[in-house]
């Protein structure tokens, strides 16, 4: 069953070189995301991943095209959409002087629901931090807490924006396991990343974006078969990073 259907999505911003002109941050994107899959948006910096994600979430206005989330139109029913999605943003800042428990209760109240902060924190392995402040947490703990905040309304779809950027390998693995567990419980997960290993390990399907457009979309295995260069010698094997680089080129992006 398709749970997210985006058709011809477009987002234009004023061009940084010439404010009179605009450039397409997202250019006629079509996405069809299945219920209960983990879907990855891959791309170099500035490819339009976060903009796309924020348009799906109703956080950024949509210039053209439309998005249906579980049958709800994001443009006309943003608040209904926000009720059934959970969002983890790239930035991890919260109100000062509120501990994890206060914050989770606050976020739950914004959905007019109540939660057991302890149980939710246990789910992300932070039950012993219930009275800590977010700034006292390590990078990995912050990301897990951020996910806990996104879970207060028990969402159908969870959006993760570069969830493992800046984490050490252990924290990264830990977060992958958390995402896998949530997915096994029936949650659809849409994430952006430029970590190839993450895309390959975690995602059921991947869309590769470059300069605002989707240039390839399939399962990681199929993408490797289609695009990765043939292994030149026996022990070497292509991986998703090869796919990524062969599609988007080797030039440095910023």
């Amino acid at each position, binding site marked *: 069953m398709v749970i997210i259907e985006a058709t011809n999505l477009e987002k234009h911003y004023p061009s940084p070189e010439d404010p009179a002109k605009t450039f397409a941050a997202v250019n006629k994107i079509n996405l069809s995301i299945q219920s209960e899959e983990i879907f990855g948006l891959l791309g170099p910096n500035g490819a339009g991943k976060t903009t796309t994600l924020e348009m799906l979430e109703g*956080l950024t206005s949509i210039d053209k095209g439309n998005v249906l989330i579980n049958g709800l139109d994001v443009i006309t029913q943003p608040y209904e959409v926000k009720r059934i999605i959970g969002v983890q943003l790239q930035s991890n*800042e919260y*109100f000062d002087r509120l501990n994890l428990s206060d914050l989770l*209760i606050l976020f739950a*109240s914004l959905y007019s629901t109540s939660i057991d902060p302890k149980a939710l924190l246990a789910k992300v392995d932070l039950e012993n931090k219930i009275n800590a402040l977010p700034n006292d947490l390590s990078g990995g703990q912050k990301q897990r807490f951020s996910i806990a905040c996104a879970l207060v309304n028990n969402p159908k779809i969870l959006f993760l924006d570069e969830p493992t950027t800046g984490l050490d390998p252990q924290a990264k693995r830990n977060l992958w396991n958390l995402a896998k567990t949530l997915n096994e419980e029936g949650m659809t997960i849409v994430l952006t990343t430029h970590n190839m290993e993450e895309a390959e390990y975690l995602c059921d399907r991947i869309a590769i974006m470059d300069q605002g457009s989707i240039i390839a979309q399939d399962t990681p295995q199929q993408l490797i078969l289609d695009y990765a260069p043939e292994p030149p010698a026996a022990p070497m094997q292509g991986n998703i990073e090869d796919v990524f680089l062969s599609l988007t080129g080797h030039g440095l992006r910023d």
Partner: protein
Amino acid sequence: MFTKSQLHLASIFIKIYYRDRQSLAFSLMFPLIFTGIFLFSGGEPDPTDIGLANQSQNELSIQFVELIKEKDIFAVTEGEEVELKKQLIAGDLTALIIVPENFNQSDTGRLRLLLDASQVRQVGAIKDSLDSMLLSIERELRDTQPLFTLDIEDVKARPQRYIDFLLPGILAYMLMNLCIAGSGYNLVEYRRRGILKRLFVTPIQPKDFIISIVLARMLIVMIQLSVILGLAVGLLNINIIGGLYSLFGVIILGAFIFLCIGFFLGSLAKTQEAIRPIALLFTLPQLILSGIFFPISSLPALIQPIAQALPLSVIASSMRDIANDGISLLTINFNLIGILSWMIISFFIATKFFDWQKVAS
């Protein structure tokens, strides 16, 4: 009337504020300092420091000096001209009176008055009070009865001190500053740190957010102003003639106006650096023009109508009417119309310019 999320969010804002011990301590410091200053000065202006060099030392000049020293409005330092002149230049004295050597009764006694002309504001006042003082001294010396006397009577027949005039204005000024800091500065800070964006990922609507902040800040401001008012009434013996309901009514309406304006300023300011000058541009002219320290009627006539219509003016003068003259908030007058107009204007600009999609990104 309010939804559960609005009330919860409002309680969160109060909790955040209450847990901020440092700003809590400092916000109590101002009223303490303020009341302290008036407690020790008695609310009356200090006497003007003047120097007096008596170069004559005859009977008349000694008598003259004694009479000047009796006057309450001057604190007199006696000494040599050269020494006193140095003090005048250093700014320790405001004026220097020199009684010349040939000071006697046969001729008109000529006194020399030395002033620092850069103290423009004081020169006129000192000259006038010296003139009238010389006149009364002359009468005493010649033992003549004055032709006229002036009995000053307050038509409102109540003791009115400067502090009674000042306090309502200071409360209104604090109200404005606390509100603009509470909504404007916080809005910019929450936006910069991505907290607003995080909030608007949830189904909360911009009006819920505005209502919660306004509710929370109103309560905080009411408590802060109650503390000041309590201290003023208790320690400075301020007499609030009108009803407290009316006074707090104005405070609530004023809080609404300034919180909305704060939202507007916070939406205008793109950065943390920009909000300070923008807020100052709004608050500073009002501090001068809104009759906080001096009545608006002392301003140039051209500016007066504008000054009277400023939001701080209508709030301050409404509070003063209630506190000093016992007028009820519900008396239909210029101030009430001004307050209601500013409520509409401020709410309109706050909601019109608060575009969360722009504000949050």
